């Protein structure tokens, strides 16, 4: 359980730092709302279109805001050389992975929680449903699992902000497809039985990539 302690310590640190400045949070929120506005005008969203476009708009917004968060989270460690501090500690390197991953998951979920009521109001749809929330959680988990690993790599390259989406988006496409399909299905009122295979798919993705990513994280952070 010492491992869990170390993981939670890292999460505590990230949450504390963010609560102090609220930098990441506010920029993500502003960005997400901006995206909504842009989509509104690009698609000329009127009530008739809304149900069709909503799932896609939702997930594109989450994905881009999430990328912002991932970049910020690892940048903080790298910029002050703090990653060394973590590497010096007598713990398994995978504790760093799980700590950062949980932190990312918490922050992205927090923004999603804020955006959902705004989306619901703007689109005049009920987005606060248990099945939908589960899907959002599973999708965000997949995003955080892969994103934490890839952001650790991207942050070391010369073009870090561009590198992360380039690396991440092709890999998590299955998550986006599944999430959009389930979201659309739920909003269309499809029975859950029809959608359950997508959810199983998401769970499979999350589990497999959790294993792949935590096993390879060591190779990314070592020197």
């Amino acid at each position, binding site marked *: 359980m010492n491992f869990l302690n170390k993981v939670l310590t890292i999460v505590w640190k990230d949450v504390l730092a963010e609560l102090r400045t609220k930098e990441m949070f506010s920029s993500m929120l502003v960005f997400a709302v901006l995206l909504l506005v842009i989509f509104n005008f690009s698609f000329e969203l009127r009530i008739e279109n809304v149900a069709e476009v909503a799932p896609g708009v939702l997930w594109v917004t989450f994905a881009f805001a999430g990328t912002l968060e991932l970049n910020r989270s690892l940048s903080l460690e790298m910029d002050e050389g703090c990653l060394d501090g973590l590497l010096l500690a007598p713990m398994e390197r995978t504790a760093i992975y799980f700590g950062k991953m949980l932190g990312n998951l918490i922050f992205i979920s927090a923004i999603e929680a804020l955006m959902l009521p705004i989306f619901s109001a703007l689109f005049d749809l009920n987005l606060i449903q248990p099945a939908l929330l589960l899907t959002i959680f599973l999708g965000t988990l997949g995003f955080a699992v892969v994103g934490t690993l*890839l952001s650790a790599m991207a942050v070391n390259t010369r073009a870090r902000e561009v590198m992360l989406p380039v690396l991440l988006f092709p890999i998590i496409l299955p998550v986006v497809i599944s999430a959009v399909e389930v979201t659309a299905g739920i909003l269309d009122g499809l029975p859950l039985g029809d959608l359950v295979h997508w959810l199983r798919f998401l769970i499979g993705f999350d589990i497999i990539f959790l294993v792949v990513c935590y096993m390879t994280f060591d190779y990314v952070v070592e020197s």
Partner: protein
Amino acid sequence: MDRGLRLEDLLNWLSGLTMMGALYLVFLYAPTEATMGHLQRIFYFHVSSAWVGFFAFFVTLVASVAYLRGREHHWDIVAFSSVEIGLTFTAMAVITGSIWAKPTWNAWWPWHQEPRLILVTILLLIYLSYLILRAFLGEEERRARFAAVYGIVAFASVPFTFWSVRWWQRLHPVVFERQGTHLTPSMLATFLFCLLAFTILYFTLLLHRSRLAKLADEVAGLKKRLRLGEGG
């Protein structure tokens, strides 16, 4: 040195001969397909290219794992050489797929009718990203390490991408389905021979590209020694 040269010669000759054989089979031996006519012949090259692309990325996976275990430089060379070759063949698959699609669906990029086009495009993007990642990393050891990790993660995503695109396509069916092509025995034989020829070509290209990369490394090392000798 002698033994290495012989392998290269052997592969060169083998791929030359098998490719010529494949061309003969595809254009002269295989019968013309009933519904699509001569256009269908591109199918042999399209599928073979896609197969080589996929196989190349599998080789990258194996080389990436091997590199992380042993940190031997030649595995890194195999990994990225395979990506380059894989990308080339995947691009060929996309182009031939598009050529096939246009007369069939009257569209260069029929998303709904040919989900495989989407899958192949994603593959292209993933492995382009691999090369971009390498391009933006200066330090040798880190570049090889990161590329190896990405090679593993990228390949792991392929089955998921395949299935999600498949299911997505089934949800958005088109009014009429493409009629399945039935392969006569001679067509099947041509097809299999094509696959073989392309696979041999892949290994030949891999050998050449790896050799080239090794030589480039040696030149870089020599340049460095020269520079350090002159400076100091």
